[in-house]
Every structure is written in C-alpha cells, then in structure tokens.
C-alpha cells in the first residue's frame, strides 16, 4: 500500500480517477436501467393501465364502448386478454381504416409502448390470454420444422394455403398471408383466434407444436425459389396463366414470324 500511495500525487491520477468515476456511474445506470424491463411494479402497472385507458377512450371507445363493453359494430373486449390487443393493434389491424369485410394488416398506428399500455388496460378488465414472453417463443430451440409443416398442413393450410400465402374465405373475407409476421403475433393469433380464425388452445396444439408451426413458417419465408420463379406459390392457376401468355404467346409469335419469312 505504501508503494501505491507514493503515486497519489502523480499527474495521471486525476484523469484516471475521472475515468473510474465515469465507468462507475455508467455501470450504475446500466444496472438501474435494466431493472426497469423486469416485471412491472404494481405502481408502474397502474400507470400503464391509466395510460392505456386514456388511449382507449381516444382511439377505440367510439366502436368498442366507453368501458370496452362492445357495441353494435364491435365486440366486447372484456376478457380478450393482452395477447388479443397486442395482435390486433401491433399488426395495425386495429384501429380499422374502414368498416370493410375484415381488418387488414397495415402499418400500426400506435407504438410499442402505447400497445403495451392498451394491452395492460384491456387485460385489467378481466383475465384473458397473455402475451407470450420471449422465453416462451424460442422456436429455433423448441420447434421441430418437419412436424411444424405437417401441423400447418393439417390445421392451417385449408385457409392459409399450403405455402402460407393466404386464401379466400366467404363473403369477401380472407385468410391473410402468414409471411413476414412476427413470431409473437403468429403465436397470439393461434391462442386468440382473431376474426374468422378459430382458437387453437393448448389442448389442440401444445405450445411446443405452436413453436414448430412458427419454425416452419419462418423456414417457408426463407425458402429459396427452387426450380425458378415461384409464381406466387398459389398452385396451378398462375402456371396456366404463364403458359397461355408467355409460353403459347412466344410459340405462336415465332410461328407467325416463320410463316412471314417464307414469303
């Protein structure tokens, strides 16, 4: 120690101490900051619910009612849970742009914080499905791709098409494409059954099976265009279209050219 104290008046001491002090402050903030993402405290939750209620009154209540009890044109939101809100609002489906056949995916109007607040508010009305946590959504680790494909074809393809490209339902409704959807939203759609979609409870599809489906969808998104242009992955209709336009068009064009040359 004595040897160290010899340097206490060294000219490098001041800058060094400054660096240590800054590092210390930084680390403290880091730790304190990280602490805020851990489960909300009761106070924070209350604040979020308050904020969510305010957003709800401004943006949702005209259709869903002042107490989310529903109305002539919109269902009650009591008991739909945070997962429903997160799916509908974070994918831009709610608020709807117009009263068309069904709410479509679009750029979300509310940011993540506002969505979380809205979810907290609706969840506070009555218990319902919760937003799955990051840990629950580790599909790369827990999912199994081939099984996911089989499950998708058995449970989802009848509406969303064999490659997840979506399809038509009755009266102008449709099953949207599942390409480019965040895993958390796919999961939420399965547990809440938005719009025409049925609910896939944990008894129908276990959480692991849900992750397998997500894993398969994510692989289908990245699926290379094997065999050339994929033509939308909607089956033989586009193939027929191509053969009548490009295929036969080219051949008849060449036939006309050949016959014309002979003159």
């Amino acid at each position, binding site marked *: 120690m004595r040897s160290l104290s010899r340097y206490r008046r060294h000219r490098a001491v001041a800058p060094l101490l400054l660096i240590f002090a800054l590092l210390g402050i930084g680390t403290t903030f880091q730790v304190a900051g990280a602490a805020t993402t851990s489960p909300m405290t009761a106070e924070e939750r209350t604040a979020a619910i308050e904020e969510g209620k305010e957003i709800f009154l401004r943006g949702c209540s005209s259709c869903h009612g002042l107490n989310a009890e529903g109305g002539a044109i919109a269902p009650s939101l009591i008991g739909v849970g945070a997962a429903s809100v997160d799916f509908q609002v974070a994918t831009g489906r709610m608020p709807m742009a117009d009263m068309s056949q069904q709410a479509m995916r679009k750029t979300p109007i509310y940011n993540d914080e506002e969505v979380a607040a809205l979810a907290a508010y609706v969840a506070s009305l009555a218990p319902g499905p919760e937003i799955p946590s990051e840990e629950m959504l580790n599909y790369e680790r827990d999912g199994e791709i081939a099984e996911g494909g089989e499950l998708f074809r058995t449970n989802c393809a009848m509406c969303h098409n064999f490659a997840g490209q979506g399809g038509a339902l009755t009266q102008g409704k449709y099953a949207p494409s599942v390409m480019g959807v965040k895993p958390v939203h796919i999961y939420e759609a399965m547990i809440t059954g938005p719009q025409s979609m049925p609910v896939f409870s944990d008894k129908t599809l276990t959480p692991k099976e849900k992750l397998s489906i997500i894993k398969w969808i994510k692989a289908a998104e990245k699926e290379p265009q094997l065999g*050339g242009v994929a033509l939308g992955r909607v*089956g033989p209709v586009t193939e027929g279209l191509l053969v009548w336009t490009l295929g036969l068009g080219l051949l008849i064009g060449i*036939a006309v050219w050949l016959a014309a040359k002979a003159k």
Partner: protein
Amino acid sequence: MSARERIAGNVANYVDERTGAAAWMKKNLQKVFPDHWSFMLGEIALYSFVILLLSGTFLTFWFDPSMREVVYEGSYEPLKGLEMSAAYASALDISFEVRGGLLMRQIHHWSALIFMAAIVVHLLRVFFTGAFRKPREFNWIIGVGLLTLGIVEGFLGYSLPDDLLSGTGIRIAEAILQAIPLVGSYLSYFLFGGVFPGVTFIPRIYTLHILIIPGIFLALITVHLMLVWYQKHTQYPGPGRTEKNVVGYPLMPVYMAKAGGFFFIVFGVTAFLGAVASINPIWLYGPYTPGQISAGSQPDWYMGWLDGLVRMAPPIEPVIFGYTLSLNILIPGLIIPGILFTGMALYPFIEQWITGDKREHHLLDRPRNAPNRTALGAMALTFMLIALINGGNDLIATNFDLSINQIMWFSRIGIIVLPPIAFIVTKRLCLSLQRADRELVLHGRETGRLVMMPSGEFVEVHEPISPEKAWLLTQHEQNAPLQLEEKDARGVRRPGLLKSKLRKRFAIAHAEQVAKPTVEDLKEIEHH
C-alpha cells in the same frame, strides 16, 4: 461425279434395290403443303408430345409408383423424417437428388401444359375455318378424342407424385365417380381396389399414364397425320387456289427444314420455361394425407373449367328412395362435359345436316363468311371461359378484393346469359365485316386524302383494291338455305315434321349473309 457422290449414290441404290423406296420417297418428299402460321399450331402440339415422351422416359428411370410407406431422408429439410409414400419420396428425389431431375420434371410438366394449350388453339383454328368439313370429319373426331385423352393423361400425370395437391385432385375425381347413380360406389371400389385412397391406385394409373394412354396417343396421332397426308392439307382461299389443288412448298427441303427447326424452337421455349419458372412444387405441398387440404387447390388449367363448373353448382342433393343423388356433382362433373364433348365431336355432322352440303371442301372459310358457325364457336368459348374463370374464383377474390360469393353468382348467371349474348354479338360482327368487305370491293380503299371540289364539296379519294384482294373478298360461296318441302311430290307430308321445321330454321339462320358484290354490282358502280 465426285467420290463422295458416287458412294452416296451406291448406298442409295443398294437400299433402293432391296426396298424399292426411291419412287415412294420421290413422290412423298415432293408433297406440297400450304404455308400459314395457323397451320403450325398442331405442330406445336405434336412436338410437345415428342418432348413429353422424351422427358417422361427420363422420369420413369427414377420414379417409384408405389404406396409403400417410407421415411423421407433426402436433402429437403422441411420434410425430413416424415412418413410418406415411396411415390412421393421418389418424386422428391427426382427433384433434389437426381442430376437434372427437377429440370426434367419441370420440362415435362410445362410441356404438358403447352401440349394441351396447343391442342386447343389448333382445334379452334380447325373449327373457325371450317377445316372439319367433308372429307375431314373423322380427323375432327380423332382430334376431339386426342383432346379428351390429353385431359385424362394430364390429370393422371400430376396425380402420380402423391403430394397433397394431387391427392386432393384424385379425391375430387373419386367424388365425381361416386356421383354416378347406381354404379358410382362400385366403380370407385373397382378403381381404387377398395376404400380411397388405398394402395393400388397410384401403381394402376402409372401403367395407364406411361404405357396405355401414350400408346393410344401414338396410334391416334399417327392416324391423324396419315389422314392429313392422304387427304392433303386444307388451304386458305387466294388467287390460284382451288378445291382441286394445293398451293405451297414441297416437304423436302422447305418443310423438313422448317418443321425440324420449329421442333427445336418448341423444345427451346419449353426448356426455357422449365429452367426459369417453377411448376408443381411438390415439396411445398407435402405428402398426401386424406385429412389435409390446402386453400386454393386447383387442377391444371385444362381441367380448370371442370373445377369451375363444380364450384358454381348449386347444392342440389335430393334423396330418392333412401339414396342420395349428388346432382351438384353429377351435372357439372359429368353431364355438362359429356354434352359439350359429344356436341363438339358431332358438330361436322350437325352442320352437314343443317346445310345439306355433301360436297368436299379443301378451301378454308374465312370465319366471317360463316357467321353462324363463328358465333357458335364464340358462344362455346364464352361458356368455357366463364367456367375456367370460376375455377380460379378464390384467387380472383383475394387478388382483386372481391367476394368469392359474388364471383360465384356472376358465374352462375353469366354462364347462362353471356354465351347467347356472345353468339348474337359475334354474328353481328361477322355480318358487319362482310358488309365492310362488300364496301371495300365496290368502293375501294379509303385513302384518307380529302379533295375539295370546285363547288366547295369535300370528297375522300377512294382507291380501287388489287384484283387479288378483290378475288379473296369475293371468292366464297354464298349458298341459299336448304329448301325442305313439307310435302313430297305426291303431296304426302314428310314424316318428322317438327324435325324438318327445326332443320329449316337452322338452315335459314346458318345461311344468313350479306350478299357479296356481283359482277353486275361492280359494273353498275363503274358506270357512275
């Protein structure tokens, strides 16, 4: 004579002395064919058939038509470890393990689509130009047979890989089969060797697809071409072309070179499609399980109209004596196609019956000069097109933001209302074109040059058309409708009066024409 020529001569002589082929060859290699692009449509079909044989043979080397359960261990990750039939697994192996396999599969499938499309446009050409008239009625029937066989062959072909889409197609075919009253279920059991899907169906249709039907195809195509050869090719009207000659080029060397070259062009276009555009991506569909179905399950285009008809059929399923009669499948799936194809096959005879024309015809009609036939064709096409469009109703609904129910109702009403409208419009169009031809012959071509007369009047200068063109526009026959006497020479009413009345009405409708200009008309005009 050079040494090479001497050797070639000796070889040819050697062969000729033993086969006597020289005279036959000389005669036939000089056979003349008329030249027109629309005469090459059938060639596209023929060459596609050759491509189908070649690529199909390649595929048989690796395809295993067996329903044996295997576990997929190939290189396509999303299916690894799944249980599937050996048929599907081997089709996947052709796609991913066999060198050039996917390309060949895609060439084979694109070629099938081109084959069917070429048959259809060839058929339309033959129909609208009246090439089916005597003496070519049999060839027309063979053509209709080839079309029908092509639909069946194509369907069996894409049913072979046993993927989800093909299994769905077979399921629908089974439903149509079962809808046949009384024998339907027995036929289904017979074909599937028990309950759907069973293990015998794929091996059976494999034999049909690669042996029986191609064999029938080969035989029918041979007869089809031999008849063209024997009866000589029809030709479009023009100066110097009569019912008794054929104006064109000899087979050797012109058509040998042309047809040979065109074969490679067809092969090239097919290979190009096979190389750049994915077709029937069976690995995406997954193995077939009766419990699965995909949205937008459609057949290939040549079956699309059939699917469209089934999709628009109202749900009529009466129960008679405790048995369900599936009219909603039976009518669109069997009865309407049966009527359509029978009517198509018999059309040459129907037209003959209407016109009473028993003469041979080697000069083709310009479609406008047979307004009734052209209108009838347009009517049939409209019917087929609406059915075809309804076959893709789900994709139209999602892509154009429409309701699938609206499209279905449009099709249901449209398929009854629009074909007659198409008939009337087309007939009017043909008659108007005839009138325009008449104007052209009588008053010449409008030059667009306006001349101001001394009186201040503006007149457009007309130029007379060339004699060749005038001949082309006036060469066709305009026959009066068939005269049917209600009573014969002894004053006895002919039997089957209703039939004669109907025939008379058809004959009048068929003979409706705008009178073509006569020499007198032209002279009178020149007088002015």
